[in-house]
């Protein structure tokens, strides 16, 4: 949706009209689709890459899990510090605490999704936690989406995603 505003017309980003959520992609990549030629011709301009719908929500989830409270300058309460659990003994008790932290984080900071289950398995041999997150996204009519993630020494990262 582009408004009639003159300024918006001039610099607005071309986006998919049928998308519901749009966020800039994490690494500020150029979009694959060319925006048009520059004034003097020759080169082709690209917009910033945009994350749409589930991608935008995944950005948000990743930011929630990888941000330590205090890091976001205008909202110091934002984020859950998942990496702090790595300094606790790797056991089922910690895994439960971790699961509750993830659940609370999503409920607090991501109103677009509702969590069905959070499963955290402590891999004591590798000192890591395998996380399985099952959510629904009502606004996108996604009944169940499963994310597999890992929390280990390098930090938190999503592994795979499965959509029903």
């Amino acid at each position: 949706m582009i408004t009639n505003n003159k300024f918006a017309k001039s610099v607005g980003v071309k986006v998919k009209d049928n998308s519901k959520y749009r966020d800039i992609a994490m690494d500020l990549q150029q979009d694959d689709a060319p925006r048009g030629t520059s004034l003097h011709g020759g080169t082709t301009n690209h917009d910033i890459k945009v994350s749409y719908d589930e991608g935008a929500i995944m950005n948000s989830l990743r930011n929630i899990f990888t941000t330590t409270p205090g890091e976001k300058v205008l909202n110091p309460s934002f984020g859950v510090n998942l990496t702090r659990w790595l300094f606790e003994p790797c056991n089922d008790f910690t895994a439960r605490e971790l699961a509750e932290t993830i659940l609370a984080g999503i409920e607090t900071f991501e109103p677009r999704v509702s969590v069905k289950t959070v499963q955290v398995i402590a891999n004591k041999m590798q000192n890591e936690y395998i996380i399985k997150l099952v959510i629904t996204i009502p606004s996108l009519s996604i009944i169940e989406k499963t994310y597999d993630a890992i929390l280990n020494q390098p930090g938190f990262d999503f592994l795979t995603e499965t959509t029903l």
Partner: protein
Amino acid sequence: MTDEFSDYSLPSTAYTTFDAESLKQVIIQRLRDEGSFTDQVYEGSNMSAFIDVIAYSYHILMYYLNRTSAESIFSESTIYENINRIVKLLNYSPIGYQTSTLSFDANSTDELPPGPYTIPRYTYVRSNDITYSFVKDASFTKNTQLNEPLPIVGKQHLLFEGEWTEHRPMLAFGEEFEIHQIIPSSTDSNIDHFNIHVYVLDSQTGKYYEYTEVPSVYVAGPEDRVFEKRLNETRSYEIKFGNGVTGARLQPGDQIQTYYLKSTNDKTVVGPDFLNDLKLAMYSTPTFSKIRQDTQPENIKYINFDEIQSVYLTNDRRAEASQPAETVEDIKEKAPLFFTSRDRLVTTNDYQTYMQRNFGNVIKDTIVVQNLDFVDGHLKYLSEDIGLSYPNLESRVMHNHLPFASTTTYNNIYIYAVPSTEEIMSTTSASRFLSEAQKKAMITSIESNKMISHEPVMMDPVYMLAGPCVSVPGETQSPELVNNTNIKVVKTLRSSRDTDALKQEVVETIYTYFTTVKLGQLVNIRELVDNILNIQGVDTINTCRTDIDMETEGLSLAVWNPVYQTDFTITSQNIELPYYKYVTFNDISNLFNKIEIIETTANSNNYTVTAQPGSTTTVPNTTNIDTTGTTNTSY
């Protein structure tokens, strides 16, 4: 012109209310209107993180923009460089560091033949790397072949801490209002604000001329060899010359030679007898020798290296402490007053500001009054309160009037000043009074700015003493009562504070209060009592007699004139002193021994207190304070 930006639905003054949060909301709203992105409203989105960073960055930038704007306003400025530039508009030149000064007496031995002599400027004495220097030529005449005191030297001159330093020569360009900057040889030393001398070697005649400092070159004539000095925003001194219309203009090739008094140690305050046994040494450099020769008045005979060995100095007073350069707060306070007075001494406030500004290193406090206030105040006090038949013949009044005042007193301006060396422990020391040389220097300085009809007279304050005191009705009131009165401090129940530490803190509280008093100040006994009661472990404070069984609640003080003891008042209420009185605490070095610390134990009606050595005393609780301000105690 529309009130809104063309593309934004914001009033043009909206920026005045921007902070990080509001900026963030503006950006979110803007993105929402624009419609490309949607996730700016979710705190977890990448967009939100970017917005936070941008809003916060602008917030910081706007903060500094505000600070910068505020710094250009006189009342808001907090940085020295800025306030220095701002007050330049008012033609206010901030005062820099003022070095320590020393009053002295000069004597000559029988080896010096009779005759007129002049000790050249910059002559100095040095001991243990501490140097005190003359800042101008000091002339005297020796009349006999004998050892002879030279009072005129001591009365008219002061020694200034520091040594004279020759600045590297600077070449003139011949520009209008040419400005040169003095860059000291080392950055860790201080230049005395009032001792920068300028000489110019005329490229035509090959002769040095002395240039005189003036407040502004704009009031000088076209041929006047004058300069204007200013401590600039980088804390360097700028020397400004005239343009040939107001103040003589430098010619291309003229050589500017400046000398400044460089203080070696800003904490140097030498004591009495520092000068004894020290030899005077004459300042000498090839350039200065030429300058001295070129600028020597015809009727002056400079003393030579051999003759100066027959002149020696003594000092029975310690030096006055140095004064740091004006701070931002000082400048803000004094610049408007200076601007109001337009560098002229007309009102008593003008005099007061001038004294504090120019003699901050010599005086601790000053009050200036006109003749009517003097007659109604100080003179009336001497004649009516003290009962002197001829108050003008009172020694301190005589001492002050004779050297300075004319026969009539209508236009007298009385400047009361407390020297900065005033010692709280001494009651009769000479250090409580400004020396004649100091008074002379002040009067001389005032002369050029005062109204022509004014006759300034330096006055010594009436020094009053205060001490704990309580008396029974009918008792003769004298300072003897103070010797027999102690301060009793009752400790709070179960306080574990050490007795000596508590005593010491009480002493320090009283000492601090009396070191900050000013001329004509309200002696606020209630505030002092509150300060003592605020000490941890102090429950109550009483004043008690040691020779009889008598005690009163709170602090009862006697305030008296140690010279004329008929002026003796006992009170536990606040006392407002007149402008000519300055109070110090009596025998403060012994105050520690006059404080008793009492341990408390709970009792039903009265509280029983146990004195330190083990004796038991019951504190009467029947003290009444009547409305007249005196304290009565029932027994």
